[in-house]
């Protein structure tokens, strides 16, 4: 799976493996039972005798690590690979181990419970802002009644991209990330302050104002559609209420996908790049990635295309 993704990536970029200077991989050993200490995919990503770094988190974090390697001036071209392989694990047991072993793990908290608490917090905030009746209608709306349930299927997947130094074509002009509090009771789960801070860092790096007029498309990593209103609010795309109002139709308008974990952010990035390649003129997209219970870690990348060939 990983080899096929890397092969497709290099073919797309018309590159061969010896032209790759360094590799960054993103995966989580607890979820797939294998990728601790770079043992499972070193050959598949062509990292033998190369500088390989492994990030235990969403693929966008690996992308940022790769970008920082290039910005340091020591590397010109870095391969970034993310994969999630959750079909082999007992997701509830594994995600319980992602919580602290003294308090939250002892209570048996899982990733899907955290998501459930977050969805409920968002629904309650929506109900308080709009009145019970409208939220009731929203909850029943078919576009997200399926995706905010607790039976989120995890799935497997692998993504790969090559980034290199330069300022032609599609440019990664800004990125930022942020980690929120670990204890679920220390956060307002109906908001996403971490994403607001991550986006602010990305806007500053790109030299953009916080206003969203220049961004044409958003590529979301969502585990449940209900996460869209607070996340759209956090990056300044629209208000919570506006996000809520457009929700029933969003499935058709906004690119969103939160799965598989760890590959999702990178998958969003690839979707964004493919759309930018089709774009004739100057165009800008925002890529969102996250991982951790109830979106604890948030990442934002800004891509810009001048419309030239790439």
């Amino acid at each position: 799976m990983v080899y096929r993704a890397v092969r497709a990536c290099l073919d797309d970029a018309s590159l061969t493996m010896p032209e790759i200077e360094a590799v960054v991989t993103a995966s989580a050993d607890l979820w797939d039972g294998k990728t601790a200490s770079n043992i499972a995919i070193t050959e598949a990503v062509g990292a033998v005798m190369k500088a390989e770094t492994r990030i235990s988190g969403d693929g966008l974090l690996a992308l940022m690590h790769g970008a920082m390697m290039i910005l340091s001036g020591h590397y010109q071209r870095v391969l970034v690979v993310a994969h999630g392989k959750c079909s082999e694990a007992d997701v509830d047991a594994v995600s319980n181990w992602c919580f602290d072993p003294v308090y939250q793990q002892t209570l048996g908290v899982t990733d899907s419970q955290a998501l459930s608490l977050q969805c409920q917090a968002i629904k309650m905030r929506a109900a308080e802002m709009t009145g019970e009746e409208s939220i009731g209608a929203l909850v029943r709306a078919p576009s997200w009644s399926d995706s905010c349930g607790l039976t989120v299927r995890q799935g497997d997947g692998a993504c790969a991209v090559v980034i290199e130094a330069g300022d032609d074509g599609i440019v990664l002009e800004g990125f930022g990330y942020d980690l929120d509090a670990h204890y679920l009771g220390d956060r307002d789960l109906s908001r996403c302050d971490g994403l607001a801070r991550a986006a602010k860092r990305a806007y500053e790096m790109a030299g953009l104002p916080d206003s969203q007029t220049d961004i044409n498309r958003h590529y979301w990593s969502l585990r449940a559609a209900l996460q869209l209103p607070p996340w759209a609010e956090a990056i300044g795309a629209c208000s919570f209420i506006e996000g809520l109002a457009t929700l029933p139709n969003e499935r058709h308008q906004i690119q969103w996908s939160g799965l598989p974990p760890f590959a999702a952010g990178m998958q969003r990035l690839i979707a964004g790049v493919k759309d930018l390649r089709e774009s004739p003129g100057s165009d800008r997209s925002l890529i969102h990635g996250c991982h951790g219970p109830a979106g604890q870690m948030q990442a934002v990348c800004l891509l810009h295309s001048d419309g030239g060939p790439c």
Partner: protein
Amino acid sequence: MQENNSEYLFSSITMDLSWNTDVGETMAGFFQRLKAERRLYGTRCSNCLRVYLPPRPVCGNCWQQMNDWVELGEQGTIVGKTVCYYEILDSMTGKPRTTPFVLGLIQIDGADTTLNHFVETPDPDHVSIGDRVETVLRDTLQGNVGDIVHFQWLGPPTTSSQGSKK
């Protein structure tokens, strides 16, 4: 509240996790061949001709998929060894292995890489690098990693055992 108690607490949790790990096409091919023919097979890179045992799907040096299977010898050479005096759990049985025992890096005849496995010998202190070993498979093969029981120490290379090397 008066803080005069210095009893420190511990959170005792046992990590009980399990995965249904797909062994992958390459290892599945290795086990199938082992079970059918009582033979070890390696994969060969068509570019650098390196033969991998355990078999890998991709040659790390050439970043090339490997589809050629190579039949390997029954004997091999110890290229690295250590004598263990500390009891550790044998991952095959879940029970401590009687000490002392020898762990070796074994290059099977025909392979370019090594396997790490137990070397069975009456005298652990006299096992040397370069000594010959023979693969011992269990009687009824099941097509998994437990099929290789250990490698039996044969002694220093003789002319005849050298001759069997490909």
